[in-house]
């Protein structure tokens, strides 16, 4: 009876593709989805860029003579939080709601391939943010040392890992509407906590230390110190702790649907 499907159309030949090719396809689509999403771009690119330019140029507060050197690492920390935490949490929550993860879980793609695809996409966007914010910083007079940049890159990598783990924990366990609200709310709280670590002159020391115990404060402080060639071991410890606990919790409670 079939005219649409000549004999042999569906003859079985179920050979999986090579893992690098699967990962490449996975990464390609994940990156495309991140860069095409207007709300994500607002959060990951436009808000950080606007904040960097605005805070550097406008004479608000007392941040010394080299304002741009204060704000590039602080805003970069916020940009990492936007991409790795808020963006990922929301994306993962909606992927789950629309059955994307379960759908992929029923294919030849290994489960870790889903995570690697997402991770590579996040790393690419963070790299893009670093280039854009760094470039704008340089245009505004920022002159970091090469060693400071290298140290900063290591801190960015650690911060990205920590916030991705937290994002997966949030996005992988709660309902998408709740994740949307909580992830955005936490973005504002993290922005505030990060800010508490920079304006050291007027803020009580206790408050500053409390902020540095949070992942946002720790990342902002560690990245600021890195650009001045100082290693914030305390901040690194805080990031590793939050990241480790979140990763373990995510492994335990993450749900595909």
């Amino acid at each position, binding site marked *: 009876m079939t005219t649409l499907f000549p*004999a042999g159309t569906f003859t079985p030949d*179920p050979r999986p593709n090579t893992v690098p090719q699967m990962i490449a*396809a996975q990464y390609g*689509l994940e990156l495309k989805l991140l860069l095409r999403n207007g709300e994500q771009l607002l959060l990951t690119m436009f808000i950080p860029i606007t904040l960097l330019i605005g805070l550097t140029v406008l004479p608000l507060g007392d941040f010394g003579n080299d304002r741009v050197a204060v704000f590039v690492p602080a805003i970069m920390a916020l940009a990492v939080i936007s991409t790795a935490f808020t963006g990922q949490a929301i994306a993962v929550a909606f992927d789950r709601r629309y*059955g994307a993860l379960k759908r992929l879980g029923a294919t030849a793609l290994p489960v870790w391939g889903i995570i690697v695809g997402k991770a590579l996409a996040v790393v690419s966007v963070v790299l893009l943010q670093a280039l854009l914010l760094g470039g704008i910083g340089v245009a505004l007079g920022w002159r970091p040392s090469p060693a400071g940049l290298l140290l900063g890159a290591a801190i960015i990598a650690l911060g990205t890992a920590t916030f991705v783990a937290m994002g997966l924990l949030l996005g992988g366990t709660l309902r998408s509407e709740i994740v949307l609200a909580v992830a955005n709310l936490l973005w504002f709280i993290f922005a505030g906590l990060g800010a508490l670590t920079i304006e050291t002159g007027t803020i009580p020391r206790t408050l500053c230390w409390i902020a540095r115990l949070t992942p946002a404060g720790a990342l902002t402080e560690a990245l600021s110190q890195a650009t001045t060639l100082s290693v914030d071991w305390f901040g690194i410890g805080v990031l590793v702790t939050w990241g480790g606990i979140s990763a373990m919790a995510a492994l335990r409670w993450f749900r595909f649907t």
Partner: protein
Amino acid sequence: MSSVANTPVRLRGVSKRYGSTLAVSDLDLEVQRAEVLALLGPNGAGKTTTVEMCEGFISPDAGTIEVLGFDPVTDNARVRERIGVMLQGGGGYPAARAGEMLNLVAAYAARPLDPAWLLDTLGLTDVARTTYRRLSGGQQQRLSLACAIVGRPELVFLDEPTAGMDAHARLVVWELIDALRRDGVTVVLTTHQLKEAEELADRIMIIDRGSAVVSGTPAELMSSGAENQLRFTAPRRLDLSLLTAALPEGYRVCEHTAGEYLVEGKIDPQVLATVTAWCARLNILTTDLRVEQRSLEDVFLDVTGKELRQ
């Protein structure tokens, strides 16, 4: 060929409990190669739980499952490489376009079917650039079917494959499933539509409250318990003594309602010939002569005690 190659799906005494509900209870099931098996049952009968255990998404509480010779939970990767899965309600990245989603799944296979051809065949070319989130339910279903078969699997699980599709799309999908079987693909599908099971399946298993109630070919199911009635219509008040005498012992003949006659006993070709010969002797033309066939709906009602469409 080994028995694994001939019996790609084998369930033995499989049970699954959710809290106090027994979703699947002591289920035995075998699916032969290149066979279309339909799991038919009302909503909540345990159909989806059964296929999702075969796909490795759910672990059974008791019993063993072998898919292509492997345990689908512990050897999940080896099973997933060779099967195609259409989940109930589909599934996809909400912001990915239909074409991108199918291309992605095609990229997991070394020799996939042509995604563009598949989109065209399933009537999705017009929405290839529409995001998954904006597809209609029927379009999401068709995309999900395309994702299930694009990697040339040898075994596919289709959970409610035509739910939410219009009549035309349903016919295309039926034709496609028919072609899958013809080309040697084993198909396990779930449905709560009798017509679908009747149209597509080589074998139907009716399940209710997690248990297999009855299974067989559509013809077997529809004839079982009904091959002992013959009905025909003829003029009223015929003398039936001659017919009774001509039939073997133990057969009962009566005028069931005015002008409608009923022969009870094992109805075989000889009995049919006896009845028509008797009619010829009396020079009467019977109309509407039939051996009772139960509809699948009757079978379903009998074995589960409930209507299917609810």
